[in-house]
């Protein structure tokens, strides 16, 4: 379990961003854009908020994390490595033959992952099932589930939104990475999902709207969700896809493309400051 301070978290976010661009560059493919937009949400979760024991992955009381948008596993692998699930160096094996770090997460290969994912729209249902099992077993662990905003176009997400509210699953905390980009362009031009807050509220969820890159807002949102009883909470985090790398920010094309050597240098300069 970790309780990094705000200052430590800020530094960790830089490292996680560095990991994301380095590991995808080494792989020659992967999904940096939606990984970078979720860095603050994920870093705060793994290094401050969640109860978990990297050295005891089956600890029954652990909080659970479900990566519904499986393509952004680089950010998950990075925060897992940085909380001690496996060596940071292993990140560079991403997407390589024989690696535990598959292009989309495989729970059979990598212990510490709850479930495999990669087909969008499914994670929140799984989170709900875990919450139902927790209720039956009188356990109070929390379940976090990260979704993309484009992913919200999947009908199953709204089925699960109904289920969580119907069964009053207050251990469930959904995180929406609201970066307004998907593969084919802006979410609002491909298939609009707005207004998100009103939608989730009308489905009887507690909504928390934040700037997803402001760590103090992120931490406060997790705390507010934890204090909310009788209904599930969703943190709708306004973010920038590709955040932290100047040339990737708000560019749909960086959804599923990795840096070449030159681009990697610029990215690392952007993240750590030139000459660092």
């Amino acid at each position, binding site marked *: 379990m970790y309780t990094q301070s705000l200052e430590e978290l800020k530094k960790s976010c830089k490292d996680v961003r560095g990991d994301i661009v380095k590991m995808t560059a080494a792989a020659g493919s992967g999904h940096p854009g939606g990984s970078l937009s979720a860095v603050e949400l994920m870093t705060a979760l793994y290094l401050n908020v969640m109860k978990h024991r990297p050295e005891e992955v089956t600890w029954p009381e652990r909080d*659970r994390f479900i990566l519904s948008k499986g393509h952004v596993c680089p950010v998950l692998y990075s925060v897992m490595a940085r909380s001690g699930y496996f060596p940071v160096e292993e990140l560079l094996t991403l997407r390589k033959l024989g690696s535990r770090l598959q292009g989309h997460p*495989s*729970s*059979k290969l990598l212990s510490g992952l*709850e*479930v*495999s*994912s*990669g*087909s969008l*729209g*499914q*994670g*929140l*249902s*799984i*989170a*709900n*099932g*875990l*919450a*139902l*099992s*927790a209720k*039956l*077993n009188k356990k109070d662990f929390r379940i976090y589930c990260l979704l993309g905003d484009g992913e919200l176009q999947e*009908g*199953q997400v709204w*089925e*699960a939104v*109904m*289920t969580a509210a*119907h*069964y009053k699953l207050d251990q469930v905390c959904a995180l929406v990475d609201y970066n307004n980009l998907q593969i084919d362009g802006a979410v609002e031009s491909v298939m609009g999902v707005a207004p998100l807050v009103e939608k989730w509220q009308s489905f009887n969820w507690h909504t928390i709207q934040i700037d997803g890159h402001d760590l103090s807002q992120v931490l406060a949102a997790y705390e507010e969700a934890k204090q909310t009883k009788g209904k599930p909470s969703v943190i709708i985090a306004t973010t920038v896809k590709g955040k932290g790398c100047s040339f990737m920010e708000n560019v749909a094309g960086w959804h599923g493309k990795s840096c070449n050597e030159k681009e990697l240098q610029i990215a690392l300069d952007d993240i750590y400051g030139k000459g660092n």
Partner: protein
Amino acid sequence: MLPNRDGYGHGLIELGAANSEVVVLDADLAKSTRSDWFADKFPERFFDIGIAEQDMLGTAAGLSLGGKIPFATTYGVFVTGRAWDQIRTTICYSELNVKIAGAHGGISVGPDGATHQALEDIALMRVLPHMRVIVPCDAVEAKKATIAAANVKGPCYLRFAREATPVFTEEKDFFEIGKANVLKEGTDVTIIACGPIVYEALLANEQLAAMGISARVINMHTIKPLDEAVVLQAAEETQAIVTAEEHQVAGGLGSAVSEVLVKNKPVPVEMVGIQDTFGESGTPEELVVKYHLVANDIVLAAQKALARKIK
């Protein structure tokens, strides 16, 4: 006569009492699938997810991650068709301990027509790594299969039929997932069947006997993992095979048996089943006759297979 979904209902009740980890989910068809029998007895362990099959499978996945043994229940067409990707990627890829019950398997669903007659479910489930596929032949076996599914780890698909059909197995009969039951010995031809049509195979055995033909009858209740040894022994000893199922011949039991034979012991195979077509409305009795799924059709297939035997 009992519908084999009743066996499922009884199996669930027994499981519910014996194992507090067993939970049941349904998608607004609890009465029809018999999962309401469990719901009445164990309401706190029953979850109606509403008309949302994909969410039901995902929720079941989560329950299994929390240590529960979930039975996700609805009609076979909907659970295997609409939620196939959820079964593939979330359940099978992660090898989760989720049991999937598909009610209303086969054309004998009757008047509801093609939309509700699961005729491709065995094929859809059989191709998935880690999945077991079980098709009980009557209500007694259906109950055993339900209980057996809870006692193995990993994903299972159970297929049940809607109509009341003859109950011809007994409580004391041996049942193990993956181990076929030889119901009749025979030396000239072997009929391998699954589901309620096994009873038709037994009738065919009698008709063939009257013609002087000795037909072995095998109840292949588990399509995956297939009992290859029994199939190969039958091919060796009788040299001709007939498969019978209430399912498309492509991808189902007939395909599974043929795959084993072509690799090891090619002998003539005739397949009784749905021949690449959808069903339609009608009474179950009318439909099984129209679609050539009765004893007489099995007899004809056996004669064909015999005629093709390599002398």
